[in-house]
């Protein structure tokens, strides 16, 4: 018998514009101890589903049909008292943002101990013992001290461990996980995923994991469902889903992810056209109809498409699933032609660039003697986790901040200590930037064409109104947006459209160097691919040098020509992309690579997990900054002496005390299972 059985569930919300069916019809079974992953982009209804299971839909939401059977009871009809026993007792939940999920004015101990007291009436002493035990289970060092702390005194990863501990305290039979690692650094994420796998075995709890990230789900789940527009469109064992996806949407999702080993020259990303429809706006028959390349009138838009079995345990909701068996051919035209590696002119040369912030009497070195170059027309990726100083460097380069020492030559001039106000107009136009957050990048008070026109005028590209209008239209066309959009306000645009405007704005002054700081990390997967493709196309067409800041190694491997790996303000390793993803590795790069959640269960990755937390940038070791967490630390020399730059040939430099020969002996992180 299933543990959780959702039958024809319909969830409706009452809004000012009427009733919206956020989930029109949803069925799903989860067995005892099973680990099920549900993938979907934002707005597909997966969070609504989780909250419907928990009976927490707010004043305006309700279950309008169907049933949610859990351990034989229908949750949709549970009484308040039944709910109190189920919530936190039989079904527990781990939230997306641990920082806000914990009460800021209560200690961790108080918050944990409430659970055993509320479920099963434990005494205070018992509750304390159990809370401490479960804190040890989630590998938090010194549970006793953690119990006495307040949430703001813990790091993001630690808070998430606390939330997981809280969920497990009453030994629930079902654990709902709502994007539990989104917002955490990759190395922290990898550790949390390991923990979930370990606890699942130990507690025998069934997992219902929702995420937008196929890679993460592949790490934890046996069975994966794909959700689109409030409906389950595909449901298959993990291996089958990745090997033989049947639904065009699933295939689209997989196509928009950079696969390990693939790059822009050989395997371009395939984007899904259009955007995710807002709740209740998707076509009745097939939600994906409007974005599907295979949609056929009369077949796909007639009646609601039912879920059909492809094989044992593999279900798909597509009228044409039998015809989409063969993998889609890669459109060759979209690949980016490799550029000549040799003799490319150096456009930017950083030479011992440092940015120091005084903090009280101490000094925070956000950038510590960075040295590397960017070549004309190349893509230089700077990779690192939060606190690595990659964004600080981006700002220094663009002139939004100034270096405190060192030399930063851009197109022949040293701009290290020169913010925008001290640069010439030509230099400012030549170095432009695309920002991370699509919602902050455009001024909400002005129409989206306004910053484009403004930039054209300020950079002297166009002065006459007619000229400006024509140029704005051309810029919009360059980023594949209709010219009519220039009068729209930013809030009328989707995230992807906003980032396109931001790219158009950056290109208004014909820049020679473009700094892109995590330009797609806030976008949905299917939109990411389109924006990346667009950015790479424009960059290649204009011969612009792109400095791409990212935390996503998969993406970096896909698009970069050269890579710089940063940790805590320093460069750990730099070199051509091909050299970086094979041994010799810097130990940090190796750990970072092994932490990347790969959306391919057939791929084996070396398992290296970093201990502890990133140290405070105010309190860094005098030697190698990575020494406190390095799994391959040699000894005191790492703590005390700055590591030498070891040249591995072909511009590949590793800053490490370990000799190159030993680094070369490492196994490659990614291996195909034979």
């Amino acid at each position, binding site marked *: 018998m299933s543990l959780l059985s959702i039958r024809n569930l319909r969830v409706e919300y009452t809004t000012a514009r009427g009733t919206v069916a956020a989930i029109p019809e949803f069925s799903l079974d989860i067995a005892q101890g099973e680990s099920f992953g549900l993938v979907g982009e934002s707005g597909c209804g997966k969070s609504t589903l989780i909250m419907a299971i928990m009976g927490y839909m707010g004043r305006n939401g309700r279950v309008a049909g169907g049933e949610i059977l859990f351990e034989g009871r229908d949750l949709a009809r549970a009484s308040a008292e039944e709910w109190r026993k189920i919530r936190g007792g039989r079904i527990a939940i781990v939230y997306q943002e641990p920082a806000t999920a914990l009460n800021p004015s209560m200690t961790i101990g108080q918050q944990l101990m409430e659970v055993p007291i509320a479920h099963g009436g434990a005494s205070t002493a018992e509750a304390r013992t159990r809370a401490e035990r479960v804190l040890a289970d989630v590998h938090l060092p010194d549970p006793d001290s953690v119990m006495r702390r307040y949430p703001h005194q813990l790091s993001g990863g630690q808070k998430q461990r606390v939330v997981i501990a809280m969920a497990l305290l009453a030994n629930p039979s079902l654990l709902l996980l709502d994007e539990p690692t989104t917002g955490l650094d990759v190395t922290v994420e990898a550790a949390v995923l390991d923990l979930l796998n370990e606890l699942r075995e130990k507690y025998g709890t069934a997992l219902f994991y929702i995420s937008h990230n196929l890679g993460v789900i592949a790490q934890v789940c046996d069975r994966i469902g794909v959700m689109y527009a409030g409906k389950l469109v595909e449901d298959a064992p993990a291996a089958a889903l990745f090997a033989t996806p049947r639904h065009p949407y699933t295939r689209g999702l997989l196509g928009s992810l950079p696969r390990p080993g693939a790059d822009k020259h050989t395997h371009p990303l395939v984007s899904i056209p259009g955007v995710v429809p807002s709740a209740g706006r998707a076509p009745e028959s097939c939600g994906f109809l409007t974005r599907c390349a295979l949609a056929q009138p009369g077949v796909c838009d007639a009646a609601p498409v039912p879920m059909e079995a492809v094989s044992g345990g593999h279900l798909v909701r597509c009228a044409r699933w039998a015809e989409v068996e063969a993998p889609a051919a890669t459109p060759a035209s979209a690949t980016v032609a490799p550029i000549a590696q040799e003799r490319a002119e150096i456009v930017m040369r950083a030479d011992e660039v440092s940015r120091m912030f005084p903090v009280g009497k101490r000094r925070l070195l956000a950038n510590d003697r960075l040295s590397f170059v960017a070549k004309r027309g190349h893509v230089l990726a700077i990779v690192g986790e939060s606190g690595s100083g990659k964004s600080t460097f981006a700002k220094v380069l663009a002139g*939004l901040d100034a270096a405190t020492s060192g030399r930063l030559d851009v197109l022949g001039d040293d701009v290290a200590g020169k913010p*925008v106000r001290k640069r010439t107009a030509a230099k*400012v136009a030549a170095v432009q*930037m695309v*920002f991370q957050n699509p919602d*902050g*990048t455009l001024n909400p008070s*002005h129409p989206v064409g*306004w910053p484009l026109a*403004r930039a054209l005028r300020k950079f002297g590209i166009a002065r006459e109104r007619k000229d400006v209008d024509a140029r704005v239209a051309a810029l919009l066309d360059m980023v594949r947006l209709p010219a009519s959009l220039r009068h729209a306000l930013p809030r009328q645009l989707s995230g992807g459209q906003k980032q396109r405007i931001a790219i158009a704005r950056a290109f208004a002054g014909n820049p020679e160097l473009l700094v892109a700081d995590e330009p797609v990390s806030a976008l949905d997967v299917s939109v990411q691919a389109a924006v990346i493709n667009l950015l790479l196309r424009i960059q290649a067409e204009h011969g612009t040098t792109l400095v791409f800041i990212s935390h996503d190694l998969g993406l970096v491997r896909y698009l970069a020509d050269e890579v710089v790996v940063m940790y805590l303000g320093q460069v750990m390793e730099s070199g051509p992309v091909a050299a970086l993803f094979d041994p010799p590795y810097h130990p940090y790069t190796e750990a970072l690579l092994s932490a990347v959640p790969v959306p391919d269960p057939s791929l084996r990755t070396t398992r290296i997990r970093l201990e502890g937390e990133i140290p405070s940038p105010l309190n860094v070791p005098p030697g190698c900054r990575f020494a406190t967490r390095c799994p391959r630390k040699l000894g005191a020399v790492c703590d005390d002496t700055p590591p030498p730059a070891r040249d591995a040939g072909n511009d590949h430099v590793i800053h490490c005390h370990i000799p190159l020969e030993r680094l070369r002996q490492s196994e490659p992180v990614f291996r195909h299972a034979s």
Partner: protein
Amino acid sequence: MSAPTATESAGRATPSLWRRLPSSPVAMVGLGIVLFWIVLALAAPLLPLAAPNAQDYMAMGHPGSSARHWLGVDPLGRDLLSRIIWGGRTVLAVAPLAVIVAYTVGCAMGLLAGYYRGWVDAAISRAADVILSFPVVVLYVILIANIGPSALNIVVAVVLASAPGIARIVRGLVLSLMHQEFVAAAYLRRESDVFVMLVELLPNCRGPLITDFCLRLGYTTITIGTLGFLGLGLPPPNPDWGGMVKQATSMITVFPHMSLYPTLALVSLILGFNLLADGITELSQAD
């Protein structure tokens, strides 16, 4: 070219709030009350009213409502209805004027403090703190009692008392807006400080400020009434709601209508502003 662009965009976004206004009954009631008084104030010279300062000695014997004087007369035999309508004219001229000037000063202070930080911020914030540590009525009493009661001085006092509070709100908004990437994008176009403040930042403070503006109109109306009641309002014989109440309180046991009608007029106008502010808050939270 910057200035027209800014007003253009502000003008476009405001109608969206105006258009949604009918969906809030609270805001509509408030707007209705305010409009009622605005129409009466505008129409005052056209209405067949007795002159507000004309004394009808015949009516003083029976000051209650009559065919000649619908709401009766005040202790000096002046027509109450006429004085209330003409009094509304003063309030509706002085209160918005004072609040608008206070907003100009307060926005400038807040923009400078939040934008430049450092010593500019320290100087502006400290000055604001000193003013804000005065109990407001005490500040008004000391100021007006010394510089003399007049419409201009009331405006000066309201500006002095309100601008620091407005500056504090604007400063907070600017501090959070400065982190937004569109400000960085403006720097990457080499925009000037003044441009960034006025065109990039100020229009985005609009939302929270609209509510505060309505609340302040209500509060300034309270202030004007209170000053009138304390004898620090417009000098007689100008019709002034607070002053009318004060003049009639000694007779409240005999002729309560003389103080009640102007009181109700004042309360209704304040209620109008406050309901409007509440409705707008509700609408902006529904976004």
